[in-house]
């Protein structure tokens, strides 16, 4: 990748980003190219409308939530470093990471990935997935094909299963527990972002 070093200089805060997220220079450049592709007006930051260029997102039932996840609450735009930080969560986990308790847990660890997913459910950020939020997600995913009643019963049953402290909502710990059998490292990693 002979051009990477020169390409890297175009990228703002490249070094720092690489440190923080663990991406290699090639990846940073690739992501930057993608960023620029989405950022058609060359403003250096993305707005929600820019994500509309990705046509498949429109068909995705939770597309708008995903887009929303890029934007921290209250902000209307996202710059490149934040863009990269969000995507960093989907890097495959480094198996041989040194278990240093003083270092903060990297953002692409299992917990980090789960937290990200949790936040997508928990739109009002109160730390719990309430029944209404779960219903919203179910409605989005199942769409027009099921009745309201069925959705209700599914949501009921889901909460009943996961809710251990009987507060009629799913906290992060309960969320994590209900997914303990699922191989999150595998499921929430995108290979090419290694």
């Amino acid at each position: 990748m002979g051009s990477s070093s020169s390409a890297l200089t175009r990228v703002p805060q490249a070094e720092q980003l690489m440190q923080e997220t663990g991406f290699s220079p090639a990846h940073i450049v690739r992501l930057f190219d993608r960023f620029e592709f989405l950022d058609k007006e060359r403003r250096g930051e993305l707005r929600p409308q820019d994500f509309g260029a990705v046509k498949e997102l429109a068909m995705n039932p939770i597309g708008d939530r995903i887009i929303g996840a890029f934007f921290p609450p209250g902000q209307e735009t996202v710059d490149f470093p934040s863009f990269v930080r969000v995507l960093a969560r989907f890097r495959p986990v480094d198996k041989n990471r040194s278990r240093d308790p003083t270092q903060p847990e990297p953002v692409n660890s299992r917990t980090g990935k789960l937290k990200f997913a949790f936040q997508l459910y928990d739109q009002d950020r109160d730390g719990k997935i309430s029944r209404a939020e779960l219903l919203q997600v179910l409605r989005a995913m199942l769409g027009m094909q099921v009745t309201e009643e069925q959705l209700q019963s599914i949501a009921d049953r889901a909460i009943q299963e996961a809710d251990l402290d009987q507060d009629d909502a799913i906290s992060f710990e309960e969320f994590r527990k209900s997914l303990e059998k699922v191989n999150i490292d595998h499921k929430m990693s995108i290979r090419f972002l290694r």
Partner: protein
Amino acid sequence: MPGSHSPASFGKSLPERGLLLLVVLVFLEGSVLPLGAASSPDISPQDNNMDHDKDEVKGHNITKKAFPVLSVDYKHIHTPFEISLWVLLASLMKLGFHLIPRLSNIVPESCLLIVVGLLVGGLIKLAGEKVPPVLDSQLFFLCLLPPIILDAGYFLPIRPFMENLGTILMFAVVGTLWNAFFIGGLLYAVCQIQPANPSNLNQLELLPCLLFASIISAVDPVAVLAVFEEIHINELLHILVFGESLLNDAVTVVLYHLFEEYSGVGTVTVLDGILGVICFFVVALGGVLVGAIYGILAAFTSRFTSHTRVIEPLFVFVYSYMAYLSAELFHLSGIMALIACGAVMRPYVEANISHKSHTTIKYFLKMWSSVSETLIFIFLGVATVEGPHSWNWTFVTVTVILCLVARVIGVVGLTYVINKFRIVKLTTKDQFIIAYGGLRGAIAFSLCYLLRKDHFPMREMFLTAIITVIFFTVFVQGMTIKPLVELLAVKKKQEAKRSINEEIHTQFLDHLLTGIEDICGHYGHHHWKDKLNRFNKKYVKKCLIAGERSKEPQLIAFYHKMEMKQAIELVESGGGVKLPAAVPSTVSMQNIQPKKPPPAPPAERALPQLPKGREEEIRKILRSNLQRTRQRLRSYNRHTLVVDPYEDGLNDFLLKKQRMIELEKKITEMNNYLTVPAAPPDSPTISRARLASDPQAYSVKPMSDSVPTIQVDLASPQSPDSVNLMDEFRRAGQHQHQDDDEDRGLMMKPPSEGRRPNKPGEAEGAKDQQRLVRCLSDPGPSADEDEDEPFLP
């Protein structure tokens, strides 16, 4: 009886064992005798009779004998008789092993069966008879192998298979090629070494060596299945080794034909090599294509079987077998065709067929594959005794060693390469198990048996070597793999009970990852999977799945399946006739609006009312069915069938029973339902709609049964029936439930005891109950047969 004095705890096993051994001996005798009678050239009484008959027909004046009251004519039936004897022997052996638990814990079943085969072979040889050539190609490849492969293919766990497809292909293709050439080359080299006294090994050419190596290098699915099923290893390793054993068939086929063709000639040119590579792709992809075509045909056929449920399983079996035969016709890979057929047709067929058919298919496949496997191992033992053998120390030992070495090197090397591309890497422990699990089996033996003696003068030596390798892998590796798994603390298979949460979140994550991939502009794994799903939903499901089921989203199907299982558990635990009415249906005749979730104002919720005569019928049917299902509680256990929903904890049941009793009380208060003119209640769509599932347009089916709701053949595993049942339970569960002293054990009180407070509700409950029960015992040829069964107190 040997066991009559033993303590109670052994009381069951000893007499059984004794009896079993006795029976076995009898049968062995039985098998030997007819063999003797059949092949002995002596004039036996029957021949005399035949001669005399012939003479009489010809009109010669021979003295008239008395009319033969009882005559023995073995020749007439000897083939089916022998086949049945063998099958019976195999099954009895299987029974026998499981009566001796300690033995079956230590020694895997395959080993025991081979030993039995050896014994039987020895007996037959002692009796001086010719051992039937049971492992010759026809019988083995056309009759014994397909059931096992179909069983494997139909129940193949698709998701882990697809996720690891790259790895599996690498092991299957590259690994087998490596094995073949490594072993073949080194064997040839070893044979060429001329020690002081040149042995006839030097005559061995390169090509036969390579052919031998290609036969022996393939991991055998039968052996792998037999051994791995007992060790309950984690899903990843299981699917890796097993998938490899299935997919390497294509490689084996190509190599085998390639070397066999040219062994006669003696040389293989580069062109042949290239053609071989092309042939490989043709064989593999062609096999898959043939299988897929038949699979789609089967799925399409199953769409129309709603009126003839009895023959549904037949379609599955016949189409699959045809796929296998068609592939074999073109020398394509029959195994891959079978796998493709089973895997392709399964999701669609399961959506179309009834619950009973599903069970039938499951059990038939397990039964056939079980018997096949047993027979294969026994025959292996028998064929070993028969020979022909030609033992050559050098050749055999070198072969065994090379097999092991090649396997280890191959696995280690490939894993190194594969791990660069995998997200979840394979650890050393994994590699060890994969290498150790490379068992050889009967396919290799049969392939060698097929070789023609004139082309391969060393055929017998090959056979001996192959048998030795098979014995080594099956006995040594098969027996030690279980303790090794324990020793190395390899992860075991997790109990597969998926919760609804997992399902929801997994789907959510799928969407999330697809979205992220799209944002990154990366067409990765999720992207294509999503595209495939969309295509599937939009076009394929519409074609292949009958009626309304085609629009059911997967999450809903899963949810219904879960609810169904729970409801079945409830019923079986004493759920009672008085199950609460289905909740408020959202649909009356007018209320069906396509594509919009109906707002369903409470006033519109209604329960259809049944005329009294019908109620009686329903109740009668319910009683008989419930009784039957309860008696069916014990599950059949090959080694692993799907986790049986019947065998869950009892506590759950009791709890639910309490809730349900609460619910009954609630029902007595539910007296004020509007009734809607009973819509023809037998259309599956309507009943489903009644239970608030599909709001979409439905079609009314004509009632062809006297009792309503019998037509409901929702009784497929993904029925939506139980949704509202659980609703009621849940709602009841919200209340504090106290322990009632209503009797919980007795469910089948005849309704005439007058405990029904509310007729319509009761009927409703009965109807619902029946609907559930119908799922368990699908109407066979006619529902009337059920009514004739006496109520067993």
